[in-house]
């Protein structure tokens, strides 16, 4: 099976459909249930460039359905995480998982059943953790961004844009483009919070529990306004703020030792 997804896929416009959708079969390689929820999240979002192992079942599914999938599977992952304990505990709850699987199929009857079964397989793999390698890109490096995070981001941006249009408030297309362009270039694993400024620009914020933060307002393609909160040899946070190019921002994140907030 060829796994070659690109983060850009998750930013396709709403009218683009994803082809050959497939839940990736890679789950928690350790079989540890503590990571099961995250593992499910990592595996649940198909991408346009992923090739199905069963081409005959390939079918296009609108992105809106994928979003429903993401929500639903995420809820399920929380449900199953709440069982706690080792994978044997999941096995004890097999009937519950079966019910969930049936629920998915019932809910999406319009989609080919065989495909649905394929997509629901990760639930079974929570019970029987597979002995497969973690998700790798074609060049055998770890993926830069988890597909689920990209879907969350795409959905958030779309929501902000829709709300702005409805309330007749500014929304900067240039800012949106700059944000997407920047995020594609940035190795992160945790989606930032995205906000809409009064100016119509988007702002991405990563915050740590220790108050450290990376906050970036996207003013234009290569014009970012940043506010970093960092710590150096004390508990007191210190601010750094200004404007820089995308490349400069990445250098500064490293210089202020903030890259840990991205994962």
């Amino acid at each position, binding site marked *: 099976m060829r796994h070659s997804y690109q983060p850009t896929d998750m930013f396709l416009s709403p009218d683009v459909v994803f082809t050959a959708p497939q839940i990736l079969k890679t789950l928690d390689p350790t079989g540890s249930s503590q990571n099961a929820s995250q593992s499910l999240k990592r595996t649940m979002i198909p991408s346009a460039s992923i090739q199905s192992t069963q081409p005959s079942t390939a079918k296009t599914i609108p992105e809106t359905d994928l979003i429903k999938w993401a929500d639903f599977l995420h809820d399920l992952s929380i449900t199953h995480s709440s069982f706690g304990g080792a994978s044997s505990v999941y096995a004890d709850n097999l009937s519950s998982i079966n019910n969930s699987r049936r629920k998915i199929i019932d809910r999406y009857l319009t989609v080919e059943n065989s495909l649905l079964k394929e997509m629901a397989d990760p639930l079974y793999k929570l019970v029987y953790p597979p002995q497969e390698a973690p998700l790798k890109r074609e060049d055998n490096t770890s993926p830069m961004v988890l597909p689920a995070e990209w879907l969350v981001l795409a959905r*958030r941006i779309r929501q902000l844009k829709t709300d702005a249009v409805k309330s007749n408030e500014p929304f900067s297309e240039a800012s949106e483009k700059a944000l997407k362009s920047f995020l594609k270039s940035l190795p992160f694993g945790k989606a930032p919070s995205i906000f809409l*400024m009064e*100016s119509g620009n988007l702002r991405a*914020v990563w915050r740590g529990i220790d108050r450290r933060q990376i906050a970036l307002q996207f003013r234009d393609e290569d014009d970012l306004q940043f*506010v970093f*909160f960092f710590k150096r040899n004390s508990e007191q946070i210190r*601010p750094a*703020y200004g404007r820089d190019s995308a490349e400069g921002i990445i250098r500064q994140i490293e210089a202020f030792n903030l890259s840990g907030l991205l994962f």
Partner: protein
Amino acid sequence: MPSNPSTFSYHLSLSKGDNLDPKHHIVRYVKPGQMQGEEINGGAFLARPTDGNGVSYNWIEYYPDPLETQMNCIRACARLNYAATGKLVKLNIEKTLNEIKNVIGDLKTTVNYNPLDPENGYPADPSHALMTNIPEDGDALAEAIGDLIRDTLIETYPAKG
């Protein structure tokens, strides 16, 4: 009329532009686009085009206890259309001003009494207050201050009660 006599006499003694008691509290409306889940953007604490010469807040202790009454009075005088999913964010004046001073430096930021008279069909907003000496939105320093203010928030309430 405020139920707490000391508060009542205090606010009678204030004139427009006087600093509020730093022990008191203020709230600011935050739009849905400035929130994501429980996260609030520091940009929500920067001046809006409608704010005038400072950043608009409402002084909670202007109105009588309990808090529910105070919040309802503030909502009733609002000049913005509060979204159902918007929030009112509560700050303690002293904590917020100290945070700005400690992290950024002494900008001489104040929170002063700024009651609004009825105008353009809006009722009076007698608890209105302004946070002053905050750089204009668009400035990186302003954003840093907004983020610091966000970090001092005490509680949030639904914008629509």
